[in-house]
């Protein structure tokens, strides 16, 4: 019984983290999948959300900003707004750049945001970070608090999924696809390409901020390394590419799958080393096992990178390829199928 309970708790954490990554993968899907914007600075928007959540809700403020006593849901909303605001400011400058340049610019922004979180010690406690962040439902008894948190994450994923599915088949989503496929043609059809791209970038970044706000609660502590480009940016990218760009189901599936691989490989490598260093086998001393467990962590990153390369070459469309929405039948007139009916923008 004990064993099954442990498995149950592990499953809960797996789905909760997977769900948080799914929120971010959906955000990236709006930017990259729908509109073709290469955001290599996911970590930055994620960190803005995480720090906003942390600073607004934490009851301790000896070493950093805090004690605002904002409720958790309101803080999550503000986290989204802040991430969106940062994204808006960046997009105003960089959104018209070619995809490569946008990638470089966003990587740079993530790096600068990391510097800000690290250096502005009065606000963020610098490298030591913010801890004891309040978590939703944490006052409930043992398995129920985790279950309730998972339910909240699942609800967030569900609501975002439904909203994005609607957006995708709506004229708005079709304009996004048009811009992704052929910017010049979209512009020629009278669409204001720049403002559409800006909308997409801001919405996607707000979702990444929400992911950060959820993660800050779940981990209960954050430091500037949460915006480590590795775990945040790279993992989310591989999730989306593996699941299927421009497919919302694919984004969620990719997030769940990749997080399961990520987490299981950690568990397996730890178990393997424990076995090797156990008294009965004794192939490694405990100190050696500790060092190897650090090295295995890097091996996992290598494997995730390799997965990305294999998918890019073997199945670039991902596990679930993009499905284009059927064109709406138009009342009162014959119209060739496949023509994007976008909203007029001036």
């Amino acid at each position, binding site marked *: 019984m004990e064993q099954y309970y442990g498995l149950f708790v592990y499953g809960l954490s797996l789905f909760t983290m997977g769900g948080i990554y799914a929120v971010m993968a959906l955000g990236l899907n709006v930017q990259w999948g729908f509109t073709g914007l290469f955001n290599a600075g996911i970590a930055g928007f994620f960190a803005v959300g995480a720090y906003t959540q942390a600073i607004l809700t934490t009851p301790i403020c000896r070493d950093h900003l805090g004690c605002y006593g904002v409720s958790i849901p309101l803080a999550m909303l503000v986290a989204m707004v802040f991430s969106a605001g940062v994204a808006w400011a960046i997009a105003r400058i960089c959104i018209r750049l*070619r995809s490569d340049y946008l990638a470089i610019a966003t990587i740079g922004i993530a790096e600068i945001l990391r510097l800000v979180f690290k250096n502005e010690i009065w606000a963020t406690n610098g490298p030591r970070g913010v801890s004891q962040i309040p978590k939703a439902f944490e006052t409930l008894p043992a398995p129920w608090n985790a279950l309730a948190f998972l339910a909240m994450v699942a609800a967030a994923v569900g609501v975002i999924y439904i909203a994005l599915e609607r957006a995708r088949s709506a004229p708005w989503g079709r304009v996004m696809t048009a811009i992704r496929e052929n910017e010049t043609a979209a512009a020629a059809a009278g669409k204001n390409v720049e403002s559409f791209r800006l909308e997409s970038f801001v919405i996607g970044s707000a979702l990444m901020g929400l992911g950060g706000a959820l993660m800050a609660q779940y981990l209960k502590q954050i430091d500037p390394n949460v915006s480590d480009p590795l775990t945040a940016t790279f993992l989310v*990218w591989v999730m989306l590419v593996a699941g299927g760009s421009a497919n919302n189901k694919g984004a969620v599936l990719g997030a769940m799958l990749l997080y399961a691989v990520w987490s299981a490989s950690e568990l397996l490598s730890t178990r393997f080393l424990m076995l090797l260093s156990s008294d009965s086998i004794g192939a490694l001393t405990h100190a050696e096992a500790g060092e190897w467990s650090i090295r295995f962590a890097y091996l996992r990153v290598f494997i995730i990178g390799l997965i990305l390369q294999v998918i890019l070459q073997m199945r670039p469309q991902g596990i679930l390829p993009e499905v284009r929405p059927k064109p709406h039948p138009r009342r009162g007139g014959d119209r060739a199928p496949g023509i994007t009916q976008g909203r007029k923008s001036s």
Partner: protein
Amino acid sequence: MMEFLNFYLIPGVVLGCIYALGAIGISLTFGILRFSNFAHGDTMTLGVYITLSLIHLTGLHPLAAAPVAMAVTSGLVLGMDRLFFKPFRQSATIMMVIASFGLMLMIRSAIQFFWGVQLHALQPGIARPWVLFESFRILPKHVLIIGATVVLMMAVHLLLTRTKIGKAMRATSDNPELAALTGIDTEQVIRATWVMGACLAVAAGVFLGLDTHVETMMGFKLLLPMFAAAILGGIGKPYGAVAGGLVIGIAEELSAYPWIGTEPLLPPGYKAGVAFAIMVAMLIWRPQGLFRGRQF
């Protein structure tokens, strides 16, 4: 005045030399293969760690071990090109950008796996600076770095202007279709680009290792300034990349000089932001760069 020269301008020039060497590779890859190679910084780290191992094995001076490391790294980079970039030659360039993004993490995690993450020094001990004209001080390693960079730049210049492959590289960078029409072997040009980029990256990395220390994130930290230098100088223009690298390196160091009052103008923690600010300003106002490079 002497303080300005000794502690800000000279380190700025040294840093600029390192950025310049790295930026040539980025600029050439962008000009010839038409994509931003995110793996360039970590290629540099790889070269430095190979140099480090060679030094441990043979006890050679870093500058003597570096050419061997350049050859090994070039071979590895050609292998990576074959495995991860060649399949996308005919695809949208963004595929290669994503592939290089993945490769960046793969190279770095492989280095961290094999070599670990602790800091290393390429040369043990602390050198005393040479003192000239009573108050002008310069570290021997800085003289070495600046001198070696000048030699490498001359070599690059001769290669690009006097040899057949160098001319083919410049032609392909200027106009790939026209170059292919005149019978230039594009694949050969691409291989030469990788080799040249890798060699210069290893040199830059070894110089940085000599100046500071060796760590697994060193290449990634250089990625942004190198891109900024390449864009500042104009994409596809190797000479522009050199100028861009020098400007960015000097600007970064001078940003910490107490221009107004006694406090540093910019807190040293934000030094890395200088390159980024210059890059964004260029992208907005003059995306073709100072030397009229390609504009995408």
